[in-house]
């Protein structure tokens, strides 16, 4: 308990520091603050999105590991209102973020890319995601058991809606920074990236807290395998997008990569590949790696570093005016402090697993 209190105090202190930094940054350079906050928003949004996704997937697939993952996932889902609404702070400065807000005459898709349509879509995502979060959090599930079979169709449809809305959101928020660039695999890659960000936080709490327990270790292995698989999926998509664009070498597409290679963010490419794929892959490939709490915790932190670098890499090189790095970090800490406190609060007051025999229905999933 004492140690947890210390953790929370340091999270609160870092968050406060971040808020001071953000206020200072917003006064000095409002446009730079919007860019920094957009990155922070995109990064932290992964936590609730991953929580909702895994709970809905579990409704359809079942799995014993949910007994261990449920409290962390519930806490992750409970951050949805904060995480989804945090974007407002960035979108206040919409004209400074997106070139299409003052479109050149040759842009053919202004009927879709205009501020009114953008905010309507944003409102739809927020409402839909919070409804799904409420369903994932308060639906009748207990411990390791999925939702009642009669309701699982909601989970199925919810997953489809979530995949599409998150895909369109990633187009609105990231891809539209460069309205002429298009990659059909981008939405999947960003979805995998969000899922891995959130799962890294969830798995980190599983690895750090609530020991000892033989069953917990078995479940940690299962969850590590999920992270292992989706890490490979993410790197596969990212690499395929790069490979195809590199081979085509078209003037409409290749500048997107050249801009990143020529920017100050070039090292972020290597950071995101090494910490997001190479470290997790080789540690989790090895069976004892998946069983070791320390190894799993290191992999989770490594994935978080990778996704942070990747988010900055996606957003920052699009702007000619550089954002001061301390402001980037302050934005991450400000929203991160609030997210971590909310997450920890949810974890402490998470539903206890229902006593055996409590569910009025049973489901024989593996």
């Amino acid at each position, binding site marked *: 308990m004492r140690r947890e209190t210390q953790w929370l105090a340091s999270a609160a202190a870092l968050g406060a520091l971040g808020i001071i930094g953000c206020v200072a940054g917003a006064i000095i350079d409002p446009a730079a603050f919007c860019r920094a906050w957009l990155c922070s928003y995109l990064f932290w949004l992964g936590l609730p999105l991953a929580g909702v996704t895994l709970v809905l997937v579990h409704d359809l697939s079942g799995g014993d590991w949910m007994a261990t993952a449920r409290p962390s996932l519930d806490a992750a889902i409970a951050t949805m209102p904060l995480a989804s609404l945090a974007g407002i702070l960035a979108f206040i400065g919409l004209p400074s973020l997106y070139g299409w807000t003052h479109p050149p005459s040759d842009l053919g898709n202004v009927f879709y890319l205009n501020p009114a349509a953008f905010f309507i879509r944003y409102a739809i995502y927020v409402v839909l995601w919070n409804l799904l979060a409420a369903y994932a959090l308060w639906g009748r599930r207990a411990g390791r058991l999925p939702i009642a079979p009669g309701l699982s169709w909601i989970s199925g449809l919810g997953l489809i809606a979530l995949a599409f809305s998150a895909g369109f959101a990633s187009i609105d928020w990231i891809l539209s920074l460069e309205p002429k660039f298009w990659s059909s695999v981008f939405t999947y890659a960003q979805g995998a990236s969000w899922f891995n960000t959130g799962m890294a936080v969830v798995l980190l709490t599983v690895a750090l807290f609530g020991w000892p327990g033989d069953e917990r270790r078995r479940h940690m292995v299962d969850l590590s395998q999920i992270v292992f698989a989706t890490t490979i999926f993410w790197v596969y998509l990212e*690499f395929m997008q*790069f*490979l195809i664009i*590199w*081979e085509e*070498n078209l003037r409409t597409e290749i500048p997107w990569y050249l801009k990143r290679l020529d920017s100050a963010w070039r090292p972020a490419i290597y950071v995101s590949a090494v910490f997001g794929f190479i470290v997790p892959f080789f540690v989790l490939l090895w*069976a004892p790696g998946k069983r070791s709490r320390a190894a799993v915790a290191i992999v989770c932190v490594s994935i978080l570093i990778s996704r942070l670098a990747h988010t900055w890499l996606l957003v920052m090189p699009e702007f000619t005016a550089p954002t001061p790095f301390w402001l980037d970090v302050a934005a991450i800490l400000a929203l991160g402090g609030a997210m971590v406190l909310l997450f920890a609060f949810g974890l402490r007051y998470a539903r206890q697993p229902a006593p055996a025999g409590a569910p009025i229905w049973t489901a024989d999933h593996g």
Partner: protein
Amino acid sequence: MKDLFGVVAVFDTAEAVKDAAARLRQQGYRSFEAYTPYPIEGLDRVIHPRPQRLLPGLMFAGAVLGAAWGYWIQYWDEALNYPLNVGGRPYNSWPAFTVGTFEFMLLVAIAAGFFGMLAVSRLPKLYHPVFEARAFARASRDRFVICIEASDPRFDASTIRREFERLGAEQIEEVRA
């Protein structure tokens, strides 16, 4: 008279054979094997509790070797042996080589796994002394068989016979090599 290969016991439930294997392991027997009509969850861990290290290591070595081979063959061809300018890209185009490298890695890793599995299980094997046991035919239908082999340092036919009786074996039999 040929040498003794081992003592065979027949059990009629999966639980009985699992309990028997655990007890034998506890008493220090090491060279014994179970033959069952279908895989029994956890039985392999009872008989061989230590994780199998050889095969994963072999497959990993195969994967590394295959990746190196795959990259080299493309590099040798595209950059050394027959350099061809494709749209001004470098001869050593690692993004384009990655797919081929991956395929070669899979080929060699899977081949190492397949042949390594055969080697570790000493397959193909056309004859095994345990086939001589009369009860063994039912091990592929409805009975569960354990055979303690004479190579076990604690092997003693009469002690083992008594032990099997205590464990509730349905039928006990000695097998010649």
